[in-house]
């Protein structure tokens, strides 16, 4: 393995740490939360900057509207709740008051995807990337580990415009540099490879690295690219990689419809058609279970990426 984890940490704690850092340096940063301060790791910000923190109660639609209004006075609101409530529940509020109005709101969504675990399908948001990427003006980011989530949280404060920042609940390997510069819309190549490109986002980035390791042991060279920004998509990096490898796999903790794979398929089909396989949730709701059990049952693990890579390579060679 070319990358080593410094230990398991949850991405939501990266968000909380980034938000706290922002609070210390940017007086215009304000934060809102709909009764999930502990789950979103917003305690430090809410304790240290009580004047700039707004507990909205269990009223997400109001939270989005408040955020839009706060931007009008020059504030940079970070609105935090679970992904399921941060998108589907308030889609119309985001569409009209944030995206169409082009307001500088940062929608910060934790517990995204199936790794939310035991709470089950009601809370396992698997459609949020699709919902958010369809909105004009919206930037969509899905970070892979603690360090990257912290860096992204800090970076989006300097981007003027609506942002959807997606992260999760479970502790996962923390392997990206603590001092990284996060650039919105710039893919990060993690391994050089020649036979297959693996474009992964969120928790699937580490799984993709594990898969690349397994493939290497079988004599297959995979190039792993971390697509932390789904919109705007780094088309150049994607094309450059598939021009070299000639086939690709996408991997994400999201519905196949509307997810990263669907975005990349559009680029591949338009610019440089190659065999493309997708590791994603295939048109089904999740269920209760531990995050690891669910990732295996729903085919979002390293062996699933390995199989997809072999299918892509076989199609290329036919």
């Amino acid at each position, binding site marked *: 393995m070319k990358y080593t984890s410094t230990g398991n940490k949850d991405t939501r704690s990266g968000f909380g740490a980034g938000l706290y850092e922002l609070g210390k340096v940017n007086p215009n940063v304000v934060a809102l939360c709909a009764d999930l301060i502990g789950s979103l790791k917003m305690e430090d910000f809410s304790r240290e900057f009580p004047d700039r923190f707004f507990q909205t109660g269990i*009223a997400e639609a109001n939270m989005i*509207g408040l955020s839009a209004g706060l931007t009008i006075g020059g504030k940079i609101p970070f609105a935090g709740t679970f992904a399921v409530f941060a998108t589907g529940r308030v889609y119309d509020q985001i569409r009209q*008051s944030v995206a169409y109005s082009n307001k500088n709101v940062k929608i910060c969504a934790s517990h995204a995807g199936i790794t939310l675990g035991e709470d089950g399908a009601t809370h396992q948001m698997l459609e949020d990337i699709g919902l958010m990427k369809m909105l004009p003006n919206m930037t969509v980011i899905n970070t892979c580990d603690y360090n990257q989530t912290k860096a992204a949280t800090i970076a989006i404060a300097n981007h003027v415009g609506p942002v959807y920042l997606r992260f999760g609940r479970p502790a996962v390997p923390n392997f990206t540099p603590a001092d990284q510069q996060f650039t919105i819309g710039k893919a990060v190549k993690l391994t050089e490879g020649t036979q297959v490109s693996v474009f992964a986002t969120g928790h699937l980035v580490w799984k993709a690295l594990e898969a690349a390791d397994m493939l290497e042991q079988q004599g297959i060279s995979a190039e792993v690219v971390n697509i932390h920004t789904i919109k705007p998509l780094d088309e150049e990096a994607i094309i450059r990689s598939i021009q070299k490898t000639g086939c690709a796999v996408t991997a994400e903790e999201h519905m196949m419809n509307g997810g990263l794979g669907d975005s990349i398929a559009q680029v591949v089909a338009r610019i440089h058609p190659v065999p493309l396989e997708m590791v994603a949730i295939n048109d089904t709701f999740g269920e209760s279970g531990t995050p690891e059990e669910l990732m295996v049952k729903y085919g979002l693990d390293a062996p699933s990426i390995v199989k997809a890579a072999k299918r892509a390579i076989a199609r290329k060679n036919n």
Partner: protein
Amino acid sequence: MTDFEFLNKMAAQVRRDVIRMVHRPSSGHPGGSLGCADFFTALYFDVLRADPKHFTMDGTGEDLFFLSNGHLSAAWYSVLARRGYFDVKELSTFRLLNSRLQGHPTPAEHLPGIRIASGSLGQGLSVGCGAALAKKLNGDSHLVYTLHGDGELQEGQIWEAALFAAAKGIDNLIATVDYNGKQIDGPVDTVVGLGDLKAKWLAFGWDVLETNGNDMPALVKTLHEAVEHTGKGKPVIILMRTQMGMGVDFMVGNHKWHGKAPNDEEFAKAMAQLPETIGDF
């Protein structure tokens, strides 16, 4: 000293503007715009502390207004233009292709005076609360105003915001309601009645004022009274009794004119009742 003769003349011109604006594209919502012509006029020409010639998105050092029931765009655009936010000639482009005067208001077209999109109902009170919080954070003592339809109060988000505003003591906010008792499908009471509306807002912890929204002196007095009620720990709301379609006899009190433009014959009849007082666009 308030010049009521001027305000009434202006409101009459705004009503004429509204009918001319919706007639050209054969599209729009004349009923609510006619009912609130007096309100928009009173607010922009007598109450709101804002500089139309130097519009800024953040509105620092100014009072802000948010139209939550965005389908009243025609009257709002008319008053904004008449107040000097943009040229009155532009009113002739309402709802036409490539216009800044979209069917429902939006900041996307950079029309001076507009800070948020509205049209999908129920969102403006939350936005107003957010803007009011920002004013408090910025040490800006100016006020935030919103307008809502009474039918719009059926939206759940309104009550989320109502609860929040009172709980957090947002007392630099004056919400107003176009209380005309009408909505698209009929009288509000037969669609989903609001019950004792004043009691509801009082129970939510708001300071509630009532007025006749089509009586200029009464309306102006209540708006100034509302300003006096700010800064006392509670959000303020004015329930304005109005008549949908006010000013055109065949439209008054008829919910069928919520979202329908007059045909040529109806237009001529309406024009005959709406004198040109300031000068047409």
